[in-house]
């Protein structure tokens, strides 16, 4: 046991996400992730692509510790997610921003309250919340709509609210699972420009997408998955079609 631990590769200080031989099996079927190793540095912008059922969402869920690995080790921001204590999970997640395809906003509260919700959770004092929320809403271009009900917003606007909520706590990593999946091309591009700006300010971004144009235009690192395995990992990569493998 001691020997195995000493042999393990030391994680470089600029590496923010580390997966070593990670396998994730659900109770039924073949594993959703099968021996995946992955290293992401601070400040990177990484696309994860691959056909449906290839394990992209499973990977995101492992990174936010919604799921635990069946085998292998996951380390995120210095937290070993295999051994993290239940009590420490909230503290760990406070450094993550999470965005989903279906926005997951609180429909009974307005734009401002949805973003403030995230600040209340991390126990920010009211005075700071009143300062931070309008600032981040201005960043995502929703300054004029802070009183609107969620149901009165377009899809793109809703995803901006979700983005504002993910960013207001100044996370080190933003995990986005198909954030443009429900948006038209123009709106998708607006969201991508926001993400790029956020990335330029130092936030590491891991984004799952099926959007070929976006991936090809952005010139970022692209990780391609197939049947639970990483089949390609390219700097300034392009969207690779299923048939090529």
């Amino acid at each position, binding site marked *: 046991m001691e020997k195995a631990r000493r042999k393990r590769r030391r994680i470089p200080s600029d590496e923010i996400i580390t997966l070593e031989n990670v396998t994730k099996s659900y109770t039924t079927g073949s594993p959703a992730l099968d021996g995946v190793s992955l290293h992401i540095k601070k400040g990177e912008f990484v696309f994860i692509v691959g056909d449906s059922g290839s394990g992209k969402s499973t990977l995101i869920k492992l990174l936010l510790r919604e799921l635990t690995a069946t085998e292998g080790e996951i380390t995120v921001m210095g937290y070993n997610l295999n051994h993290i204590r239940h009590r420490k999970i909230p503290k760990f*997640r406070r450094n993550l921003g999470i965005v989903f395809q279906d926005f997951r906003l609180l429909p009974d509260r307005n734009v401002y309250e949805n973003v403030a919700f995230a600040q209340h959770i991390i126990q920010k004092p009211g005075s700071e919340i009143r300062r931070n929320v309008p600032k981040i809403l201005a960043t995502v271009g929703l300054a004029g709509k802070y009183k609107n009900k969620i149901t009165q917003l377009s899809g793109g606007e809703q995803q901006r609210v979700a983005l504002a909520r993910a960013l207001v706590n100044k996370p080190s990593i933003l995990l986005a699972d198909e954030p443009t999946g429900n948006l038209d091309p123009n709106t998708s591009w607006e969201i991508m420009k926001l993400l790029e700006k956020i990335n330029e300010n130092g936030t590491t971004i891991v984004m799952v997408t099926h959007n070929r144009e976006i991936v090809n235009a952005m010139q970022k690192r692209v990780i391609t998955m197939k049947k639970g395995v990483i089949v390609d990992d390219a700097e300034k990569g392009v969207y690779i079609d299923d048939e090529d493998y």
Partner: protein
Amino acid sequence: MMRIISTFFYTIGQGFRNLTRNRWYTLASIATIAACLFLLGTFYSIIVNFSNIVKTAEEGVSVTVFFKEGTTEEQILAFQAEIQNRTEVSKVEYVSAEAAWESFKTDYLGEYADGFTENPLQDSANLQIYMTDVSLQPSLVTYLESHQTLVREVRRSEITASTLSGMNKLIALISVGIILILLCVSVFLISNTVTIGISVRKSEITIAKYIGATDYFVRAPFVIEGILIGIIGSIIPLIVIYFLYSKVVTYITTHYSILSNLLTFLPVQHIYESLVPISVLIGVGIGFFGSAFTVRRHLGV
């Protein structure tokens, strides 16, 4: 410190807002607790009044001892002192033959009493014995009757002993049973309604956990909501019973005036001295435990 205060008020605020977010769920829970506590309050008022009536009746229960011809006052007073030492005896009154005659005259004869020159109740000197516990009356009577040299007759009140204390126990037993069943029912209903509330807000809870909410942060609004429901649910029946009580008492005393010297009702303030804390404590207790356990069971946090 600022953080804790800020979070505390936010949680309280969320608890209040939860009440209005699921109005039907909230109303159902409040109605459940209110109904239970209304029944509890009603039973409690009845029991307290009944045991008060029983107590007043018991206090009036006395055993009267008459003495044989020729028994001197000294002998009677010595016997009084002896009886006084017994534990079941609370008070012994000596009624001399003269006093017995005087009270008979004022009670029954009035002005016609002037025709008597001698006391016709020569041998009616007696001891009036009041008891601490009426159920011990038989043993006292046996004791008194064993003094055959002195005692001529022991007169006891027949209605009392077994009847009153038996009734008292039965009513207390029945009401405790009913109240226990009601409490179980209301805890069950609260936990059901909280389950509905949690399923309604499942997505909110999931989102909060993604953002890094602590277990406390997720649970607290539900628990505060439960406590608020408990407080409101206990205040409503208290107000209703307060007004109903005097109405019912007035109704009974005017329509059944024959009973009015038998039935002595306690003032509502006296009952509320204990009913208010009991109701509020039970309401808050049901709200707190009902929601806390349900939250723990359903959130897995």
